[in-house]
């Protein structure tokens, strides 16, 4: 009897508050504010994908597909977007989602103080409401990336009534038009969303509740999944993948991310740019030739990432198939250093964000580059500090990642344009600037891809402004009870179609 009671208690404890209809997802950190206008973290976007629908979304092939929008048409030489939204849409508070609400949300993104969306859509000149379901968005100039901006937070619509009532605190009780409505948030503990019955695509929603739990330690995140305390984890470490694959109660799903890992060089930002590696493209080329991307990837990431020499991931229609990483060539690297007239070993400071895997990447690069004649000094810095050091030009080479955008412009313009804010190394080439602007105006995919190929030849092969290393992978693990998960390269978790059996 005692044994039975004990067993029952233990089972009750371990089951916790599990509910067949409650999908519990472990996130790697606590999201920031849940206001699409002010938010900026990647994990926040995962929560938004259940909470706030967008005008458009992207599918597995990175094609733009309508979400709250029903259709769209470009007019006036691609300077005006005629947008028709779906009929009978409602926000979580019951308010009607009409063309006026579209205008309100876009204007909020454009004008709210501290809006991180402003830069994404400030090409908008005006927004006109034509009728209850139609808006005309007029742009100052044609913009190929514009529509893709509406597939992310800039395309999310918020309830005007709630936004007016809560002002800057809207993110503490967000009201949108996604499949789930906001229920509660306990900072650093959980975000709970409940099914919204008035959702336009309700027939595709098969769970009643989604709970997001931030669990920073990846071993503990995985332990939660293994013990049944979670149904899904946003990401696991590559070296945990074999263990998950061996467990027949779990499934793992991988997709190349939209972003990339790279090494940025300081070629023009302050005194630190006046180093041999900052001033001579041959030295940078020698550095690149000393690195074996596949070997680093094998040592640090179990060979799971995809080596690359470009910012466009394989899933993107703009991926340049013929633009591949150059194989490691120590002899050529040494010859280039001799040609450049530098005395070896040449000291190079490599700033690395202070986390275990990136430090290890830095150490492998250090060992590889030594063979070619480089004396790499690793400068491991906490991420926030490294970001500020990079902005101030206090670096020679900086190992930095980018989470990626669906449109190629978001993966390249801000790093290679001479005036762009993420161009910390102050790389500047008027030809590249001109081509980057031309790509923004070109709507034909093939022609635009050709422009990007020319940019890569100049900025990467000729000027060696940056070394692209690899595309990481979104590694999502979940219980075998969960079906219908369709991974997309952006790494978001779309609950539409998912079932808990």
């Amino acid at each position, binding site marked *: 009897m005692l044994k039975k009671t004990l067993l029952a*208690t*233990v089972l*009750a*404890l*371990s089951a*916790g*508050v599990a509910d067949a209809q409650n999908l519990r997802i472990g996130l790697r*950190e*606590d999201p*920031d*504010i849940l*206001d699409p206008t*002010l938010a*900026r*973290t990647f994990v926040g976007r995962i929560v938004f994908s259940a909470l706030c629908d967008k005008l458009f979304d992207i599918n597995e092939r990175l094609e733009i597909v309508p979400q709250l929008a029903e259709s769209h048409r470009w007019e006036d030489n691609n300077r005006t977007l005629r947008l028709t939204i779906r009929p009978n849409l409602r926000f979580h508070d019951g308010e009607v989602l009409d063309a006026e609400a579209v205008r309100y949300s876009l204007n909020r993104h454009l004008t709210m*103080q*501290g*809006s*991180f969306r*402003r*830069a994404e859509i400030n090409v908008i000149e005006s927004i006109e409401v034509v009728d209850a379901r139609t808006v005309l968005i007029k742009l100052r100039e044609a913009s190929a990336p514009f529509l893709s901006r509406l597939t992310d937070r800039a395309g999310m619509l918020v309830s005007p009534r709630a936004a007016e009532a809560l002002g*800057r*605190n809207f*993110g*503490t009780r967000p009201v949108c038009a996604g499949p789930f409505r906001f229920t509660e948030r*306990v*900072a*650093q*503990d*959980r975000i709970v969303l409940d099914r919204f019955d008035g959702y336009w695509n309700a027939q595709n929603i098969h769970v009643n509740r989604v709970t997001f*739990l*931030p*669990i*920073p*330690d990846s*071993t*503990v995140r995985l*332990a*939660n999944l*293994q*013990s*049944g*305390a979670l149904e899904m984890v946003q990401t696991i470490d590559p070296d945990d993948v074999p263990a998950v694959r061996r467990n027949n109660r779990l499934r793992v799903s991988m997709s190349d991310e939209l972003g990339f890992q790279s090494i940025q060089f300081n070629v023009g930002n302050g005194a630190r740019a006046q180093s041999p590696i900052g001033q001579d493209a041959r030295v940078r080329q020698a550095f690149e030739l000393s690195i074996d991307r596949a070997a680093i990837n094998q040592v640090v990431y179990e060979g799971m990432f995809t080596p690359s020499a470009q910012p466009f991931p394989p899933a993107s229609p703009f991926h340049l198939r013929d633009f591949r990483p150059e194989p490691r060539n120590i002899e050529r690297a040494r010859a280039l250093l001799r040609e450049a007239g530098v005395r070896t070993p040449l000291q190079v400071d490599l700033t690395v964000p202070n986390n275990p895997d990136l430090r290890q990447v830095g150490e492998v690069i250090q060992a590889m580059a030594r063979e070619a004649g480089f004396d790499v000094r690793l400068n491991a810095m*906490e*991420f*926030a*500090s490294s*970001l*500020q*050091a990079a*902005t101030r030009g206090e670096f020679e080479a900086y190992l930095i990642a*980018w*989470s990626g955008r669906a449109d190629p412009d978001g993966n390249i313009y*801000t790093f290679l344009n001479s005036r*762009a*804010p*993420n161009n910390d190394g102050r790389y500047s080439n008027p030809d590249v600037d001109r081509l980057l602007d031309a790509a923004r105006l070109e709507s034909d995919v093939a022609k635009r891809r050709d422009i990007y190929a020319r940019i890569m030849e100049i900025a990467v092969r000729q000027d060696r402004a940056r070394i692209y290393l690899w595309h990481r992978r979104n590694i999502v693990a979940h219980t075998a009870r969960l079906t219908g998960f369709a991974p997309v390269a952006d790494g978001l978790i779309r609950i539409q179609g998912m079932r808990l059996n």
Partner: protein
Amino acid sequence: MAGWLLRRIGQIIPTLLILSFGIFALQQLMPGDPALILAGEDRGDPVVLAQIRAELMLDRPMWEQYLHWLSRVLVGDFGFSWRIREPVGALILDKLPVTAQLATMSFIIGVVIGVPAGVMSAVWKDKPADWGINAIALFGISMPNFWLGIMMILLFSVQLGWLPPSGYVPLWEDPVQSLATTIMPAFVLGTGVASVLMRHTRAAMLGALTQDYVRTARAKGVAERTVIARHALRNALVPVVTLGTIEFGRLLAGAVLTEQIFSIPGFGKLVVDAVFNRDYPVVQGVVLATALIFVALSLLADILYMLINPRLRNA
């Protein structure tokens, strides 16, 4: 006694003022522009960065920021978290019961194991029991919390499936589930406290057992158990209480690694995330609250001394 108490409370106010200024000044030394951190990958718009700096007063001199913050704190407003826009006061009140529960459970585990072990170790000095207890204590002090935590998760949650691996359920929502979520982290923290308390209790007891009054008591024929419990332990407890309050204060300040491993949404996790995100109001609020807890505990320790040792009342 009342006058002494008032004097001690009077000393606390300047301490807190100096401390609050210290926190503020130290934060300015931290590298990393909070506006840039807030913007993250979206740092592309200088207009927005300027707006953020203006809203958060980051474009004002430090003394102006400090006075503004202090004037708000004096009326009970700790500001809001820059990252999630929740009021800092509410966050502190939210996290305090979590950390208090964890600290209390850990402390109880620490005292229940540590003090008797220390007494036994002193009484059986240089005997196998003493060596064994010392070895266990050394193991407890040396073992990293994160390692022990992960091992316990793998054993009790993944292998045996007895306890939830992480998370927290408030005591008033579901007491059983609450204990289930906090027992592992409390044990991890408690073993560390127990080891420290054991070593100090042992040292204090060894000192007390050689005192004249103990010899006198034994000579008078007082039972050994009474000698140890009434005479030696009571005197030995003064330094142990000091250490105990410091340990308890340390636990209340947030057991950073343990809370991180077990995803316990307490003080430690709050302040670590705030430091990494340069969420200054949260850091300031939590550190100030922690300092307040520390001075209150040190006051409590002083009061306890007087209750334990009557000679101090006239000192």
